[in-house]
């Protein structure tokens, strides 16, 4: 017989593994779909010179405004440029926008959040009030104003977006730093002589990883949409930059009769943002199940 003190645990035959798989399949079908689309777009962007059948900037009036067909998969615009090629190159721009805006937003927001969270008190109040001011503007308005002042252009638009959005990241980091500050081991580490910035970096940052990723996954899509809108009204990307929003704007004189000039770049934006959002949702579900819609 078994030795005293040992126990035999009879686990009820639960359907753990098969249940896990079917759950994963049903919940995450969207994640998989989104990921596939997203990776396709990334591939298009990276391999643009290989995939695009035509040079995206070549003007050829003899080919202008052709409907989608065998020669031009998605048709041509009013200058005879192949739309499919332009969309493929536009993918590069959009992905670049997402990454750049997020990078700069975090570059601004993270240090500010760190400082505010660590020092607390007046420093914190001042920094947070300043952030509040940026949040007080209706969405898009501040980027419009900043870009207008800096001068139109994709880079300026991206900077403007980053400046408008950094408060979100500042808040996340600050919250996490404040949480960590309360922990006793900060005090312990201090008594052992570990310096303040090191404490923050080593403890606070990992804590805030999850909410930051969640926020970033939402913002990636927003960044692309916002930049497209700015380009559409004329203050974002300008020719000869190839950007989907700009392509839609350029189609405005003709789109009623030549629907593909607007629909194709528009669809590209839609699919990209949708894919990014699906992936983001999936990541959020995995990292923080509590926050998902049940």
């Amino acid at each position: 017989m078994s030795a005293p003190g040992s126990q035999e645990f009879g686990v009820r035959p639960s359907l753990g593994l098969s249940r896990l798989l079917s759950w994963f399949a049903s919940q995450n079908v969207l994640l998989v779909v989104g990921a596939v689309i997203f990776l396709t777009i990334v591939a298009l962007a990276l391999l643009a010179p290989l995939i695009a059948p035509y040079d995206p900037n070549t003007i050829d009036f003899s080919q202008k405004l052709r409907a989608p067909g065998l020669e031009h998969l998605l048709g041509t615009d009013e200058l005879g440029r192949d739309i499919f090629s332009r969309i493929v190159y536009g993918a590069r721009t959009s992905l670049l926008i997402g990454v750049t805006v997020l990078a700069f937003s975090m570059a601004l927001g993270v240090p500010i959040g760190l400082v505010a969270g660590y020092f607390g008190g007046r420093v914190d109040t001042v920094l947070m009030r300043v952030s509040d001011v940026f949040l007080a503007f209706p969405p898009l308005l501040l980027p419009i104003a900043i870009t207008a002042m800096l001068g139109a252009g994709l880079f300026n638009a991206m900077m403007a977006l980053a400046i408008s959005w950094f408060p979100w990241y500042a808040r996340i980091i600050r919250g996490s730093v404040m949480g960590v500050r309360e922990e006793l081991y900060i005090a312990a580490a201090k008594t052992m002589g570990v310096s303040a910035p090191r404490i923050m970096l080593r403890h606070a940052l990992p804590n805030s990883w999850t909410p930051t990723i969640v926020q970033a996954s939402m913002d990636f899509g927003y960044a692309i949409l916002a930049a497209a809108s700015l380009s559409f009204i004329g203050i974002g990307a300008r020719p000869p930059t190839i950007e989907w929003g700009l392509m839609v704007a350029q189609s405005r004189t003709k789109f009623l009769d030549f629907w593909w000039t607007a629909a194709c770049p528009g669809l590209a934006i839609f699919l990209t943002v949708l894919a990014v959002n699906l992936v983001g949702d999936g990541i959020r579900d995995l990292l923080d199940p509590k926050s998902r819609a049940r």
Partner: protein
Amino acid sequence: MSAEPILAIGDLAVEFPLLSGTVEAVRGCSLSIGKGEVMALVGESGCGKSMLALACLGLVPKPGIVRGSVKVAGREVVGRTDRELADLRGGRAAMIFQNPASALNPFFTVGAQLQEVVARHRGLSRAAARQAVIAAFEDVRLPDPKIALGKYPHQMSGGQLQRVMIAMAVACRPVLLIADEPTTALDVTIQAQIIVLLRDLVERTDLSVLFITHDLGVVAEFCDRVAVMYAGAIVERGPVADFLEEPLHPYARMLLAAVPRLGAGRARLEAISGQVPNLAHLPRGCPFHPRCAKTSDVCRRDDPVMRRAARGRHVACHHALGAIDGGVTGSSEDAA
């Protein structure tokens, strides 16, 4: 007692199929309560007593699965839909909860909430319902009943709110009251008042009560019989007086030993070693055996069933019966 029991629970089981495993919150419990009887349901947090209470009114939340039988005033509850149970809930049987502040809707006045219940179950007009609510408030000795009608929950104290809850419960003259730790969140003096109030209601109206608590002092004061729950199963059942004098189950013995007693000298308070088992991964055999001083091989192997140990007393333990009868087994499970 030959009259039909007000509450008859037969082999009730509640389980939750989760990703991490199936949690058996309630495992094969049986008990019955007669008219005018107050039965205590005792156990530590997480032993399943709240889930058992919810099952009595068909309120087990999804994805819980309920099996077995629960009969309230002769009518079966398990397997019924919400619509079928609507008359029972708040009508013939009512439940009061541990935290009255969160159990009452903060966006409506307490008067409006009671009025709704009373109008629904007693079919009264607006004005008549209002009067009935005032009467109910008076019944529970809530001060200034007319003023209380227009108050919001956040404007009242914990003790007052519990009285409101009790008023809501008894306003429609139920035959069964299920009280899920109603005094736990209140301070001691208010506790005493609520207990007095409940006792008064029982005496006046022959109300049957299933009183869930982990406070043995209240059990001693207020209840007629007691059932002890551990890891989702009832391990001992019997009259309170007998139970307090000599508990049969080792777990019950430890519970009583952990309660400080006045006049008992300077004996050490015994804490119960170990922890409540994970309801998703119960050990084989008797669920208490890892913490029991009297564990033997049979305990590790077989989950004991409830057996009659003496008149009106039942216990589920391989060792307890020897203490009373000297025999190995008594007759098997019977109600009361």
